[in-house]
Every structure is written in structure tokens, then in C-alpha cells.
């Protein structure tokens, strides 16, 4: 049970059950779909970007506790950040999930550090990165579907 609690931390379970910023956005400036064909997890991400700043984020979709909480915590973490900061944060999250060390990691991840346990479960890393890949697509202005495969 201890190993499992490392993966399913209380914050992950909480955001999995009660995702924040969940729902549609009428006046999004950017949006994208994300899809994991292996498990069928889906996310639709809405962004309102103004002057290079991500002012609002919302998402819809269906997925496991890891992918839902990852999307939820991502929307919380990025509100009010610049597009460049958002991309930098993804690089750090990605490094954490794949067990890589970046300079200057500590202190920058905030609540997102709860996903560190996922790196012990290689099959679940894609659950945690789905929302972030979708973010990347939305920011790139693409209307294609971000896929984990």
C-alpha cells in the first residue's frame, strides 16, 4: 500500500475525483484535443491567451486519476503565466516524469511534484503527459489531435 500511496498521493486522488477548471470555455483563443490511443483517454483543452499570458485554462475529457489530475493541476499551475513559462514548466515536468535532472529543478514544480511517483510506472507516464502534450499543440495553434503515440 505504501508504494501505491507514493503514486496515488492525496492531491492526485483529490484532483482525480474533483478536477478543477473542468468544463467548456466559450471565448477560448486556443484549443486542442489530446488522445491516448492505447487507453482511450481523451482531453480537450481551452486556453485564453492575451499578450503572451495564459489568462485562463479549462479542460474537458475522460481519463484515469493520473491523467485527470495532471490536467487539473496543470490548469491551476499555468494560470497567469507567460507562454514561455508554460513551455519551461512542461520541460521540467517531462524531466521529472522520465527521471532526468534539469539544472535548477527544485522549487519550480510546486504542487506538480506530486507526480514524481509516476516515473516508477513507465506505462503510466503517458497518462501524466497527455494534458501537457495537448497544451503544446494548443499553443502551437494547431487544431490537430495531440497523441501520446
Amino acid at each position: 500500500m505504501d508504494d501505491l500511496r507514493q503514486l496515488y498521493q492525496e492531491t492526485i486522488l483529490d484532483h482525480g475525483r474533483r478536477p478543477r477548471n473542468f468544463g467548456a470555455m466559450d471565448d477560448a483563443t486556443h484549443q486542442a484535443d489530446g488522445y491516448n490511443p492505447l487507453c482511450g483517454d481523451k482531453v480537450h483543452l481551452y486556453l485564453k491567451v492575451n499578450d503572451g499570458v495564459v489568462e485562463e485554462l479549462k479542460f474537458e475529457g475522460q481519463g484515469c486519476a493520473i491523467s485527470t489530475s495532471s490536467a487539473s493541476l496543470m490548469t491551476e499551475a499555468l494560470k497567469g503565466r507567460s507562454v514561455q513559462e508554460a513551455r519551461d514548466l512542461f520541460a521540467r515536468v517531462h524531466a521529472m516524469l522520465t527521471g532526468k535532472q534539469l539544472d535548477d529543478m527544485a522549487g519550480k514544480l510546486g504542487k506538480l511534484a506530486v507526480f514524481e511517483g509516476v516515473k516508477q510506472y513507465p506505462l503510466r507516464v503517458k497518462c501524466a503527459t497527455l494534458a501537457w502534450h495537448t497544451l503544446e499543440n494548443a499553443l502551437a495553434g494547431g487544431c490537430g489531435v495531440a497523441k501520446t503515440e
Partner: protein
Amino acid sequence: MAGQKTEEAEVAVSRLDSQSLADLRADFPVLDQQVNGHPLAYLDNAATTHKPRQVIEAVANYYERDNSNVHRGVHELSQRATVAFEAAREKVRAFINAANKNEIVFTRGTTEAINLVANAWGGANLGEGDEILITELEHHSNIVPWQMLAQRSGAVVKVAPINDAGELELEALADLLSPRTRMVALNYVSNTLGSINPVAEVVRLAHDAGALVLVDAAQATPHLAVDVQELDCDFLAFSGHKVYGPTGIGALFGRAELLEAMPPWQGGGDMIEQVSFSGSTYAHPPARFEAGTPNVAGVVGLGAAIDYLESAGIERVATHEHELLDYAEGRLREIPGLSIVGTAAEKTGAHSFVVEGVHPHDIGTVLDSYGVAIRAGHHCTQPLMERLGLVATARASFALYSNRDDVDRLIDALLKLTELFGDG
């Protein structure tokens, strides 16, 4: 299944006592291991079954003693390899009770067998406006080859519905049959729900309408005695790795006159009669459909797997698995918030389920941490998931070596899951 036998006689032949079960389990080396600090409880048998020592040794012996190419060399090893290869064809024939061993074509598995029929038979026989009828229960491998064929030929794919229990709606299927229906393709047992389809009845309806029937028996051959003559089907496909044999080998049964009339689908060695630059003539079935050096070791392994299953006794295995399925159903109902998906009156091999508030992938990860292996996802049946209004399910599936301890371990792990996810 019981036929004319009295109930007592049936019980006498069909029990798998605890000692026999323990002996069977001991034949499977892979079961004897720890996973994440727990003894393995393997309940993902619908994905693939494990291999008994007898199969592993048959493959090893083939490579150690007889390895050679088949149907051509004049030397001793080639002779032995050819004899072993053709002896396995006879075993497959007897296993599904085909009338003639030339009606058995070796393929990579069920998927390749269906693609073979869709290409060779479909390409020659289907045109604009012809209809292929499948069901909502199908695996992607019995959907996509027909869609690809429809795209090439202008034929139309129609889909027979199921009810909420996961049972095929026979009347609706009958209504969908038309003079344009050329092929009805359905599974014998649903890989996702375990529902057993009334195949003989479907064959009767289809034949009355002038259509052929292809049966995807991938999930039936491990759990039921399959008899192509009794079913009266036209084609039937199954995979070796789901009946305790190696991966990468399977078989297609096709009625002799249908195979004889079909053009080849892959060209190469072994499938020809005579080749010249001005043209070639083709061998008779089954060679016509077995271009290139075949998976000889796989065929030998499949033969050994059939021997193994037959010596365990398919009726005995079926009864054991049925009892275990009932036991698992009762125990699964003890878990708060759990619903079994697929409650057909006739089921075998598997229970799909969902747990309120927990995604199947999280179920899979939690169970794995207790050494319990199940499958979570759409099970390559996305249209069925859509029909059921689900994204995914968790699925526990059984084999001849599965026992009550495996089920109890599943239940204990599910109780831990509800403890972990339950509050809130």
C-alpha cells in the same frame, strides 16, 4: 454441451479435482514467480495464455533436432520438419473437427486469417452494394478488414445490435440479412464480455439468406469444444497463443470448395504449381494460401498445445472454467461500487467490470501492485465500448490453470483499491 448424457455421467467426466488442477498449474513455469512482492495471479488469459512446459519443449526440441525448411528438401531433417508440420495440420483439423486437413490454412493468427478471407474471398466475390454483416460485439480484427474491403469494393458493412446484457439480438440480425448480404462475420465468444454467441443459429439464418459465415473463434477454442461441421460455418479462425500455444501462429478453416475457388492473396514460394516469366499457376489449398517459409516452430508448438489441451480434457476444462466464472461473479458482487459489464446468460472465460469513481487503468495499476494481472482498456472493441456508454473496462479472464485463489487475490486487491480510492 451436455447432449444426451445423463447429468451424473457428465459430472463424473467433467470434474477437475484439486490435485489435477495443481498438476496442471505445475506444467506452467511462468506461474511460479513473484510480481511486485506477491505471487503472480494471472487473470489476463483472454489477451494471451501461458505455455505449458510440453509446448516450450516441443518448440525447443524442434530447433534442437529437426529445424529445417518444409516441403522441399530431400534430406532427413527437411523430411522430419515436413512430417511434424503436416502432423500438426491434422491435429488442428481434428481439434475443430474439419472434414479434411486441406481445409486448414496456417496463418499468423486470427487477425491474419480474417484478412486472408477479406482479401482473397472478398476481392473476388464482392462488388458495389454487396453487404457484410458484423455485430456490435466484434474485436477490431473482425471490423477493420471488412471496412477496408468495403472501401475497395464498394460493399457496405452493416452491424447487428446487442441487448444491454451483451447478447446478440438474433431477430434484429435476421432483419438485417438481405439478398445483398454476402458475408456474416461474428465472434463465437466476445473477448470483452465473454458472451457466447448462438453461432449455429446465425449460420442457419445466414445460409437461408444466401450468405456465408466467418466465425472468429479466438476466444472460443480455449474454452469450448469447437466443431466446424456441427456449426456448419464456412470459415473459422483462431489463434495459437490463446490456446496455450506460441504467438505468431494460428489457423483458418475454410470449406474445401470455397478455398479451391479463391485466388491467392500473397505470392511467393510454396504457393505455386509452376512459375514462368509469362505467368504462373497456383497450388491447391492449403498451400495456395501459405506463401513463403512458414512458422514451422510455431506450427509444431500449436500441435503440442492442442495435444496438451486435449489431454487435460476440453470438457473438464470448460466445466472448471465455468465454475470459476460463477465463483468470481459472486465474489465480485461483494465489492462496493463494482458492476459487472456483460451479463449474458451464456458466458465463458471472462468478466468485465467497472468500479464507480475509479478508472479501469487505475484498477489495473493497483491490482498489479498486488501481483494480480488483469486487462484494462477498450480491449480492441471501441465500438462496443461506445454502445455500452463506457470508455474502458477492467477484465479478469480465466484459463484452465486459474483457481479460486487467483479469484480471492483479485477480490482482496479490489478491496484495497476501494480503500485507497474510497474516501471522498
